[in-house]
């Protein structure tokens, strides 16, 4: 049982970290970026392709991050250019189109067969009382809170963060004050895109890493973000880690094993029913 919980930390950390990307994107550029993990897939598979071609990991990995960042920036530019005034609904619908399109592009560019993804975090880190902690689990579980702390510091302590927060609260007012919204939005896309690639680079070597299932990791990541209401960074991290641990534990329960991936949906529903008890109207007035 404990073994399962610890093993679940790897997945949970990844959900949390991807969920952080989603939360940041929703807060800062008003989109639930369903393509978040798909952008990461481009980075991971780009890296794997380069590594297969003989490039050392230390070069291939940054190249993959760069590729993901550039793809994300391009998508962000499309969003800022044509959908700057659109609401979160419409922008998120576009993100779904991005997801479907990017996944197809990934199949075209990298082939439909799953690739072996190299990674430096294989194997066990330590074994305590019969419970094995893999290096990937440790990295993921630490990565998510570190990311949350980093994002918090960026938003509260830096000039860019200040502008991003202003922009997220009142985009029009911020623009009227001369804050360059488009540049900041594209930058946010690029940064979270590269981050998503980094997260997937840690987890992809540990599991069956076909492109569809990596891209659809966005679903548990959405669950994590939903725990934080797409606002709270801490809530997102807790949600992601909790979800991973829950799945890890369920993997060890004979009867429920095959349903462990259904847990996110049950969690989503429970959270929503609880958090949205009050009737809310569609417009302020």
């Amino acid at each position, binding site marked *: 049982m404990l073994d399962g919980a610890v093993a679940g930390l790897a997945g949970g950390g990844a959900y949390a970290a991807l969920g952080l990307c989603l939360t940041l994107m929703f807060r800062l550029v008003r989109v639930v970026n369903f393509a978040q993990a798909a952008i990461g897939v481009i980075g991971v598979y780009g890296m794997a392709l380069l590594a297969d071609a003989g490039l050392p990991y230390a070069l291939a990995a940054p190249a993959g991050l760069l590729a993901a960042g550039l793809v994300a920036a391009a998508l962000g530019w499309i969003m800022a250019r044509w959908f700057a005034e659109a609401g979160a609904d419409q922008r998120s619908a576009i993100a779904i189109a991005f997801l479907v399109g990017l996944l197809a592009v990934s199949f075209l560019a990298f082939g439909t067969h799953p690739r072996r993804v190299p990674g430096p975090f294989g194997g066990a880190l330590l074994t305590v009382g019969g419970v094995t902690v893999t290096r990937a689990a440790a990295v993921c579980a630490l990565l998510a809170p570190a990311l949350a702390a980093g994002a918090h510091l960026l938003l509260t302590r830096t*000039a860019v963060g200040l502008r991003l927060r*202003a922009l997220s609260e009142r985009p029009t007012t911020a623009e*009227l004050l001369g804050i360059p919204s488009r540049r900041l939005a594209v930058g946010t896309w690029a940064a979270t895109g590269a981050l998503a690639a980094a997260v997937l680079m840690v987890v992809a070597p540990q599991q069956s890493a076909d492109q569809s299932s990596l891209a659809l990791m966005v679903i548990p990541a959405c669950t994590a973000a939903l725990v934080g209401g797409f606002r709270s960074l801490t809530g997102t991290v807790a949600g992601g880690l909790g979800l991973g641990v829950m799945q890890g534990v369920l993997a060890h329960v004979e009867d429920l094993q095959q349903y462990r991936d259904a847990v996110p949906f049950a969690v989503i529903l429970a959270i929503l029913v609880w958090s949205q008890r009050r009737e809310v109207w569609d417009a302020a007035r």
Partner: protein
Amino acid sequence: MTLELSGVAVARGAAPVVRDIDLTAPPGAVTVLLGPNGAGKTTLLEAVAGVLPFAAGNAVLDGADLAGLDRVARARRGLALVEQGRTVFSALTVAENVRVVNGSADALDRAVELFPELGRRLDVAAGLLSGGEQQMVVLARALATGPKVLLIDEMSLGLAPVIVRRLLPAVRALADGGVTVLLVEQFATLALEIADSAHVLAGGALTYSGPPGPLRASPGRLHAAYLGETPTEEP
């Protein structure tokens, strides 16, 4: 800088709101734009700031046409719009509201100099301030951009007249410092006290343009524009 509007028309969606607006706001002066609700004052200011497009006519800032510049570019040319409804960044502190547009310590000092009551509340989230204080933050924030032209929309909305009496002299002082001020205000009497020239907008067109004197002297004209009927008693 002088702001000149000529033949301006603005629509919201398909509905025309204002038309044939000719108006000049010179530097160092307060130009007030009065008129009843729904006359199109806000629409006009938003179009000048680049929130809405012009349907016709043009706006010229010191000889340079604003057409083709988006709102960020216009802001960087020195145009600042203080929007209606106390648009503070409520999650940011008072100091951050100013810092977000201008990081220099100088900008914050100037804000406190203009509105000393903000000095004690610099680290309070702006959303927790009173309405009057929020409006001060909004004004101070606009000033931090170092504007050449200040467009102010209904600063007094939802504020008691006594607070407006506190804010308007600050606006006057800014104009005296050389800023071009175009002020939209529902408390007409108070606004006219600090005005150098006045325009009345009714039903989408200007019905009066000239010095504030005549409007101050015969409030009947204003009363007519606001309440829709000339009162029988004149002073």
